[in-house]
C-alpha cells in the first residue's frame, strides 16, 4: 500500500511498492526507483465523467503515478496537509487537491451558491473511500470541528475542504451600505452545520466577497 509522509511541511513523499496514486498534473518534483506517469482526467472515469467535467468546469487534471520507490510531490511551495478517510466523503476544491491513494474514488458534486461566491464554479470535487489524501493550502491549514450545537461560519476565500455529515449554507451580509462602498469586506460567508471537520487556510483567495 502506498504510504504518505510529509518531509517538511511543503513536500509530500509517497512510498510505493508496485501500486499507484493519483496526483495533480505536473506536481512531481523527484523520484527514485521506477515510476510511470499517465494522464487521467478528474470528475470520474468514462463517458459520464467526461460529460460531468465539461458541464461542471471542475477540470482537475490528474495523473496516475505507478511504480516502485519513493515519489516526491510539491506544488508552488504550498503547505501540505494529510487527511485520513475512513469510508467518509471529503469535499475539496480541485485546485487544493495534491494527491490521493488509488483506492479513493474522486467525483464532482454540486455546491450551490458557495461556488459562485468563490469564483470556483458551482461544483466541487469529492473524494470518497478508505485511504489518505494530501491537500494543499496557502499557509498551514487548521482543522475546525463542527458539532451539533457548534455551527461554524467560514470566509469562502479561506475555505479549503470539509468532511463528515455537514450541511452548508450560503450567508450574505450584503446591506444597502455595501452598495455605497461602505461594506465590511466580509459580505459573503459559508455556514456549516452538523457534525464534521472543516479545513481553513490562513490566507484568502480573491473572491467576490472580498471586493464588496
Amino acid at each position, binding site marked *: 500500500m502506498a504510504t504518505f509522509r510529509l518531509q517538511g511541511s511543503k513536500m509530500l513523499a509517497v512510498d510505493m511498492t508496485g501500486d499507484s496514486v493519483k496526483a495533480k498534473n505536473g506536481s512531481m518534483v523527484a523520484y527514485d526507483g521506477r515510476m510511470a*506517469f499517465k494522464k487521467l482526467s478528474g470528475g470520474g472515469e468514462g463517458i459520464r465523467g467526461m460529460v460531468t467535467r465539461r458541464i461542471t468546469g471542475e477540470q482537475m487534471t490528474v495523473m496516475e503515478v505507478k511504480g516502485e520507490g519513493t515519489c516526491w510531490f510539491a506544488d*508552488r511551495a504550498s503547505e501540505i496537509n494529510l487527511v485520513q478517510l475512513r469510508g467518509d466523503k471529503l469535499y475539496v476544491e480541485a485546485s487544493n487537491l495534491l494527491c490521493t491513494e488509488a483506492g479513493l474514488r474522486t467525483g464532482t458534486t454540486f455546491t450551490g451558491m458557495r461556488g459562485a461566491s468563490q469564483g470556483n464554479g458551482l461544483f466541487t470535487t469529492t473524494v470518497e473511500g478508505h485511504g489518505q489524501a494530501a491537500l494543499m493550502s496557502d499557509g498551514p491549514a487548521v482543522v475546525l470541528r463542527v458539532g451539533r450545537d457548534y455551527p461554524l461560519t467560514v470566509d469562502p476565500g479561506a475555505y479549503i475542504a470539509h468532511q463528515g455529515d455537514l450541511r452548508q449554507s450560503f450567508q450574505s451580509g450584503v446591506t444597502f451600505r455595501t452598495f455605497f462602498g461602505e461594506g465590511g469586506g466580509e459580505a459573503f460567508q459559508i455556514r456549516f452545520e452538523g457534525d464534521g471537520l472543516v479545513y481553513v487556510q490562513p490566507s484568502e483567495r480573491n473572491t467576490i466577497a472580498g471586493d464588496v
Partner: protein
Amino acid sequence: MAVFREINAKMIEATVVPGQRLYSQRGAMLAYRGDVSFTPNLQGGQGGLMSMLGRRVANEATPLMTVEGSGTVLFGHGGHHVQVITLTGDTLYVEADRLLAFDGTLQQGTMFMGSQGGVMGMVRGQVSGQGLFTTTLKGHGSVAVMAHGGVIEVPITPGRAVHVDPQAYVAHHGDVRNKLSTALGWRDMVGRGSGEAFQLELSGSGAVYVQASEEKL
C-alpha cells in the same frame, strides 16, 4: 573555515574571522556585528581574469561581494528558503543565481553541462530554463543556497538513480552523472501528457537537493 549557522528557514549567520574571507551574492547582507567590510567583487568570484571571462561567456556571472574582517553577518535574500550544504572535498554543482554565500576557501569554477549527454545537454538547458553552464564549488567548507519553498536532500546511491523535475532541481554534489530522460509519448504531442515529460536523471553516488516548488527564483 567560515561557519554558517541557520537562524531560521530563510536566514543564516556567518562568522568571519581575520585572515579568512567568504563570498556572498551582492546585496544579500541583512545585518552585521563587529568590524566587517564588504567589497564588490568585479570578477564575480575568484580565479583571475580568465575565469572571469569564462563566467561571463557562460552567463554564470552573478555579482558577488567579498566579506572580510571580524564579526558575524546575517544573510538572506528575497524571502527565499536557505539551505546550508557542507562540502567535504567533493564538488557541488549549482546555478550561480542560487548561491547566497560560500566559504572563500572553496574553489569556484564553471562547467559545461551540455557535455554530459551531447545534444540532450542542449535540450536540457532549454527545458530546465537553466543555462548550459553551471557553477561548481570544490573543497572543504560550507555553501548557502537559495530555493523556493523548503529543500529536501535525496541521496543518490549506485543502482538507485533519482529522477528530478528540471524546474525543482536546486543543486547536487558527489560523483554523479546526469542526463535528461524523456518520457515523451504521443499523448504529450496532442496535449494529453501527464505534465512530467522531462526529467533529470541523476545516477552514481552523492545527493541531490530538490525544492518544494516548480518555480524559478
